């Protein structure tokens, strides 16, 4: 925006550089002068947290790869060797394993924030779809990483998930054999999962680049859901967003560290400390907590093919959200009915997660079916219909009006506060 000063290289070297590779200017315009809506709350800090967690996973992962052996006879032992013999191996592995959980936690908060404030609506559809692609990629990466320690849960997770493809009519079995590289999950499977687990984070990093590019093209949404109109609606990214992001990142890291140092196995499953055994399935197999809602949807449907389709649809349907939600009001702040359906949706997702951890019998199955029905009805019935019949509240004329007068209309534009001048 015009009010923000453009990049002025301070040193002779940066002036020389700027005429050859304007990276200083790019960083300055993206992370210093970049105008952010002045009303962003803490729910907007999870994008930064996610970028940080991706960095943590790549750094710890590359280091772990120096000590890990992707072979069915050595994989389990090499992980134990990392835990016992490698200098700080225990720390690196616990950071990586718990880091995956923290990554998903931040991703789900980020996703729910987007849904609450309507961040997927025009003109942010592509930004949103890139986010759904990122979700799919981290699900795949997390799954393949979980297989690598080659414990009982690793092995049976690999078996169950690859067998999802056997539900495809006609070619399903051939696809599964192709995925395995054998007649069952075995050494070729472990090898290729290791290769892909190393590759995908860099694909994720690339898509994150596109995600941020799209974000900077359309600008951030904000809690009011109205676009910035004047200079007083925005503040500079640095220091305002930088400090806010840093503060919550520090709080997030305290929680992360609490898991790593005090309860490093709380989110794991004890069966994965038993070496993989193709002859015995553990009595009660469950995926990691972050896949449980999808797992519950899979099990809720008493038909293999339909169950697998529902599992896939539960994720892919997110990509169609910009067109399923017919309301033109973005933020749930001004959509009283949507707000209630949204919170029920959040409870349903958490409930599905809890049901996914329970054995598939009795009332658990019944509730899983009810919750699965709501999950899909939310997207396919509630959102399209609600947008047409809901009485929304009056939107503020501008972001600064919603901040400065708590939503009450203001006659003349308020004078720009000192904090907005950067």
């Amino acid at each position: 925006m015009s009010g923000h000063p453009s990049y002025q290289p301070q040193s002779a070297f940066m002036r020389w550089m700027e005429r050859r590779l304007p990276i200083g200017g790019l960083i300055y315009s993206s992370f210093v002068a970049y105008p952010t809506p002045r009303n962003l709350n803490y729910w907007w800090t999870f994008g930064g947290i996610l970028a940080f967690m991706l960095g943590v996973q790549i750094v710890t992962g590359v280091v772990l790869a120096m000590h890990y052996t992707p072979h069915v006879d050595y994989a389990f032992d090499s992980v134990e060797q990392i835990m016992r013999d490698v200098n700080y191996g225990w720390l690196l592995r616990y950071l990586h394993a718990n880091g995956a959980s923290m990554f998903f936690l931040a991703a789900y908060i980020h996703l729910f924030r987007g849904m609450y404030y309507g961040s997927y609506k025009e003109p942010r559809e592509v930004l949103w779809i890139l986010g759904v692609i990122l979700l799919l990629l981290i699900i795949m990466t997390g799954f393949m990483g979980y297989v690598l320690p080659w414990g009982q849960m690793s092995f049976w997770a690999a078996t169950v998930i690859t067998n999802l493809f056997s539900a495809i009519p006609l070619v399903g079995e051939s696809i599964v054999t192709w995925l395995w590289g054998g007649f069952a999950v075995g050494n070729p499977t472990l090898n290729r999962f290791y290769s892909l687990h190393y590759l995908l984070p860099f694909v994720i990093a690339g898509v994150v680049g596109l995600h941020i590019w799209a974000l900077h093209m359309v600008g951030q949404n904000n809690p009011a859901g109205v676009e910035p109109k004047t200079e007083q609606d925005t503040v500079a990214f640095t220091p305002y967003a930088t400090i806010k992001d840093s503060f919550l990142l520090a709080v997030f890291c305290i929680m992360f560290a609490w898991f790593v140092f005090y309860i490093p196995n709380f989110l794991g499953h004890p069966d994965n400390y038993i070496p993989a055994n193709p002859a015995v399935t553990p009595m009660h197999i469950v995926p990691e907590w972050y896949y449980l809602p999808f797992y519950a949807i899979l099990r809720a449907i008493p038909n293999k093919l339909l169950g697998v389709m529902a599992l896939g649809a539960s994720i892919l349907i997110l990509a169609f959200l910009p067109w399923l939600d017919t309301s033109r009001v973005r933020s749930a702040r001004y959509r009283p009915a949507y707000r209630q359906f949204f919170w029920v949706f959040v409870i349903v997702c958490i409930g599905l997660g809890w049901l996914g951890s329970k054995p598939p019998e009795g009332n658990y199955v019944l509730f899983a079916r009810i919750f699965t029905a709501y999950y899909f009805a939310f997207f396919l019935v509630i959102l399209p219909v609600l947008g047409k019949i809901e009485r929304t509240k009056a939107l503020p004329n501008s972001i600064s009006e919603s901040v400065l007068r708590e939503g009450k209309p203001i006659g003349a534009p308020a004078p720009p506060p000192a904090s907005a001048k950067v």
Partner: protein
Amino acid sequence: MSVLGGDGRTRRELTQPAGAGCGWTDGQKGTTHVTTMSSAEPTRRDFLYIATASVAGIGAAATLVPLITQMNPDASTIAAGAPIEVDLSPIADGQVVKVFWRGKPIYVNHRTKKQIEEAQNVDVAKLPDPQPDSARVKPGHDQWQVLIGICTHLGCIPIAHQGPYDGYFCPCHGSVYDTSGRIRQGPAPLNLALPPYEFLSDTKIKIG
């Protein structure tokens, strides 16, 4: 106005709006000129473009063949999947023995008389995957039930002698099979698969 193709022939007109790439505005007159490309007939150059793109496309597709098929089972994996022989004589009445063939657990179930009768006296029409017991054993060897111990739902290993039919129960998603390995309850769509096998003698089978 029209621009002649390199070979001097007139081409199909391709109009582009002013300002986009090929157009320009005449500052003095304020009028807009539109560049047009003409190609009424396909030229030898068009043919070369299509031929070049086709060769590149076929080449790229051919490169995918090794990249994709390398993921299928390799020669050593296939060789390790050769037939195996199982001696049945030590398997007691009512005992289930698990052997491995091609990385898959094979259950060899020495069924009791009671189990055989139960399996035979089922209303086949009411089963999710209708199959009489006789179709799941070799003729004259009713007591030997040989099947692949992999749940047809998502590939877990069912536990023998579990569930309401004293057959197999899958702990993953609750599929229940009877002693004939037929699906009776739960999400699995099909009966437990049967491996290819034959009786070499009354006490010996070859699987594979």
